[in-house]
């Protein structure tokens, strides 16, 4: 039995709302086309001076407040981001400094959309050794959009934001039961960004793989714990595209309303999206039953994590 628990989630979204109407003409699309293709109606973009670390710290502070602990109680901080500026150190060093921590280890996961899921799974294994672990997914995807001209089918998707989760070996609201993680580097060029050229996305490949790998990973972790998809209270997935979320629900044979969605309001915020979804879902719903976290992203990396209310 796992001794890792999820205590609280936090989120931060920039205040600037960017509607489909604002970007449609520039991309040669209509607002309705964007919504039909993605389910996205608007997204948030951070100010030019706002950094990935700024977004991460704001989500961290929200999570710590909701968990009722001080930053000084943290034993490890993990920061996932695919849009942090290149070079070193990554944003994790800035985050722990801004949280007032000296000597607390901080780990960057430069993984994009699956980063927060991998961070949660790592945290569930590391919390007994390090104590309370803060997992953050933070993205300034608008910086990637600014870095070069994108295929309109890709440029419509992205928003900025950050989410956070506190994982502890102390008993909390949800016990982490199990997690499965997978990577397959042979498709690494199908979704990639290096700051030297525009983001590349082979949408056909990404959707085809995500449509199969997300349900497969979820079924894998559920089967390992003897739980049916129909017995899961909520599915908190990377918010890539509403059509993909509906497809996952269909594949799992569960009602689509069980798959939490805020993609219409925030767009695809990459590694931040799953934890932003968890933060919103946990504020609106009691901690009851089994909850699935799942993500798929560049690499390809994908997986699923199962938690059960205590």
């Amino acid at each position, binding site marked *: 039995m796992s001794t890792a628990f999820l205590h609280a989630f936090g989120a931060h979204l920039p205040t600037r709302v960017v509607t489909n109407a604002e970007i449609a003409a520039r991309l040669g699309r209509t607002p309705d086309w964007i919504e039909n293709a993605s389910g996205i109606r608007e997204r948030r973009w951070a100010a030019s001076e706002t950094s990935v670390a700024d977004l991460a710290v704001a989500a961290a502070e929200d999570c710590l407040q909701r968990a009722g602990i001080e930053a000084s109680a943290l034993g490890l901080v993990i920061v996932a981001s695919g849009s942090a500026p290149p070079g070193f150190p990554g944003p994790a060093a800035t985050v722990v400094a801004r949280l007032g921590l000296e000597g607390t280890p901080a780990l960057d996961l430069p993984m994009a959309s699956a980063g927060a899921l991998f961070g949660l799974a790592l945290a569930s294994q590391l919390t007994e050794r390090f104590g309370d672990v803060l997992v953050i997914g933070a993205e300034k995807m608008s910086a990637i959009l600014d870095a070069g001209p994108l295929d309109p089918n890709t440029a419509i998707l992205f928003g900025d934001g950050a989410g956070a989760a506190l994982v502890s070996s102390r008993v909390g609201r949800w016990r982490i039961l199990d997690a499965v993680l997978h990577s397959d580097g042979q498709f690494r060029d199908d979704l990639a960004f290096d700051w030297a050229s525009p983001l590349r996305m082979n949408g*056909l490949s990404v*959707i085809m793989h995500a449509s199969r790998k997300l349900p497969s990973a979820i079924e894998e972790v559920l089967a390992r714990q003897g739980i049916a998809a129909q017995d899961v209270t909520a599915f908190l997935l990377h918010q890539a595209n509403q059509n993909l979320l509906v497809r996952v629900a269909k594949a799992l044979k569960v009602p689509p309303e069980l798959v939490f969605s805020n993609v219409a309001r925030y767009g695809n915020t990459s590694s931040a999206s799953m934890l932003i979804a968890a933060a919103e879902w946990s504020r609106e719903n009691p901690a009851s039953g089994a909850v699935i976290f799942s993500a798929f992203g560049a690499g390809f990396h994908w997986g699923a994590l199962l938690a059960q209310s205590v």
Partner: protein
Amino acid sequence: MPDSTRRQRLLGVLKTITDKPIPADDAESLFESGLLDSFALPDLVSALEAEFAIKVPDRDLNPRKFDSIARIETYLEEHGA
């Protein structure tokens, strides 16, 4: 080698995936012709697996392999369907 029965079954699968006209040219891209979009492609692969009792492994999840009727027929033939 052409297999008229397999071809008819393939066309039947395509008709269940989309209500749009099937391209007359077997080499025409099913994506560029508008017959399939990114969300119809996973449905097509799943339907092919069911109809022809095959398993498409992850390494074969390459859109180019399913880009035209000719390519799909080649894939099915190579996999004994």
